[in-house]
């Protein structure tokens, strides 16, 4: 049965129930009616939900470490830098992509590419650099490795992702449009930049896109009772999460309140250039601060990027 047909049937059922209740009412108020029971079938008549969470916007800095096998995940450069701000009460969220070559002030270390913060001081310094440069102080930093990321996607049974561009690599072929990706293919999707016209900016856009489609998938796979608990247990063993399990559980329940249709995505713009012989991006800091200010109210980004 299609969703539309089901919705029509449900509307019809509700009307029947209301009519039934009214008939029952008449039966009760008319003394000689002889009917003394509700005459209604079982239907869902009401639903409520609520979650005790932070009333404001929660900011998570999601990092994909560039660490190769044997290298420390928390002190290797980050390929993926995405700021996710969401409000669990409203379901609104904003994803801000930060080009990894963004040339910014790193507190205590002078100017450098932002992802060098990971090498100097791990996730903590990375969060400070982001706060310093873009005006958003992350509440949490979530770091994963290539392997951890692939495993997460694999655990969710793959993710269906929209791609704006086609490209092919040894391990994956990505088509323009929807792609069903397994863990390794997903990794190719979020790491590719050489074959994208916008280079690092398009890669950052793909990473944000993946987060939205990944969230959609996560919402589907956690619909069954107990599914979130099982997924979290798997993730805990594969991901560096610097918070306690109780907080992780509550945070995850909050993340699942995000409505994918209420998520806006932006990539911080900028100009490319060279600093000390290295190719860098000079990020548009005023744009970043403006997005942070607007999204910081309730997670909703009105007016676009």
């Amino acid at each position, binding site marked *: 049965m299609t969703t539309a047909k089901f919705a029509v049937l449900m509307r019809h059922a*509700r009307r029947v129930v*209301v009519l039934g*209740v*009214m008939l029952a*009412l008449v039966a*009760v*108020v008319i003394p000689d009616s002889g009917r*003394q*029971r*509700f*005459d*209604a*079938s*079982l*239907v*869902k*008549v*009401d*639903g*409520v*939900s*609520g*979650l*005790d*969470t932070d009333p404001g916007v929660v900011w998570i800095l999601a990092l994909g470490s560039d660490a190769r*096998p044997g290298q420390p995940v928390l002190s290797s450069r980050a390929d993926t830098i995405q700021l996710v701000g969401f409000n669990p*009460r*409203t*379901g609104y969220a904003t994803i801000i992509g930060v080009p990894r070559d963004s040339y910014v002030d790193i507190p205590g270390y002078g100017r450098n590419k932002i992802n060098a913060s990971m090498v100097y001081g791990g996730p903590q310094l990375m969060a400070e650099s982001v706060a310093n440069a873009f005006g958003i102080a992350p509440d949490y930093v979530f770091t994963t490795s*290539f392997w951890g990321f*692939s495993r997460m996607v*694999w655990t969710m*049974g793959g993710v269906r992702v929209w791609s704006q561009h086609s490209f092919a690599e*040894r*391990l*994956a072929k990505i088509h323009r449009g929807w792609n069903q990706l*397994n*863990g*390794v*293919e997903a*990794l190719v999707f979020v790491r590719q930049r050489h074959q994208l016209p916008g280079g690092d900016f398009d890669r950052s856009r793909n990473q944000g896109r993946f987060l939205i489609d990944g969230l959609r998938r996560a919402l589907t796979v956690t619909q069954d*009772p*107990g599914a*979130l*608990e*099982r997924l*979290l*247990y798997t993730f*805990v*063993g594969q991901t560096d999460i610097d918070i*306690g*399990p*109780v907080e*992780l*559980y*509550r945070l995850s*329940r909050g993340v699942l*309140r995000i*409505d994918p249709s209420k998520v806006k995505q932006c990539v911080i713009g900028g100009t490319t250039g060279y600093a000390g012989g290295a190719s860098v991006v000079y990020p548009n800091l005023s744009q970043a601060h403006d997005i942070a200010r607007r999204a910081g109210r309730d997670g909703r980004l009105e007016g676009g990027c």
Partner: protein
Amino acid sequence: MLDRVTDKRRRFVAPALALAVLLGGCSDDSDDEPATPDPPSRAGAPTIRQQPVGLDVKIARLSGHLPKAASRDLTNRLGHVVATWFEGGFLAGDYPRQRFSGYASFTPDAARLARRDAAVTSNVQFGSRWTQVVPTRQRVRLFVFAPGHRPSGASADVQLVMVGAGSGGTASELAVTGQLYLTKTASGWRIFGFDLQRSVGEPGSFAAHLRATRDKQPAEPKADDTKPKQQQKKSDDKQRRQRQEARR
């Protein structure tokens, strides 16, 4: 999601309120009421013949490892948290009544949200019209998140079904189903979130609904189960090869 749910609630509240007002008016003004009822509030009410069903709590899935004794202890603790809500919100106390205080096992903020939705999270809507209530199902299935041998969070799949007798011989069934989210706080385990639905029907409706749902289940396998095993194996092999190549 909340907005959509709120709209649903509004649609229901109007006819339900009309029903409540008219039914209340009918019973209060009735000349058929005995002059000296004993007890006064239950006069004319039918006696529900069904036996009350007790709380049925089990851990349905433990994601992590716990010793058996700890698992039993956790089942009791979480069962108590949910039962506190069942009792305070629906089952305990004399009927008819309008006041319910079932949120002692909620976190303060979750209690505030639950009070806002008291029509579903308590029996406030039917409390003033019912003279007796009998629980016919109190099923709680727990899904526990316990990394590092430490239970840290749980969802409870709840089914609370009760039959209520109203003055004038009416009998109806109220079912509250859905999920509660529990976690450890400084005051012990507490409910910090909920996704609940309420259904109203004639006695036996919920059991009929369960039978119908069970009958449908084999015809609607989960998407992941529909993949033939051969195809699944092929996909796993492909991923294994890709991972090996990626490592190189």
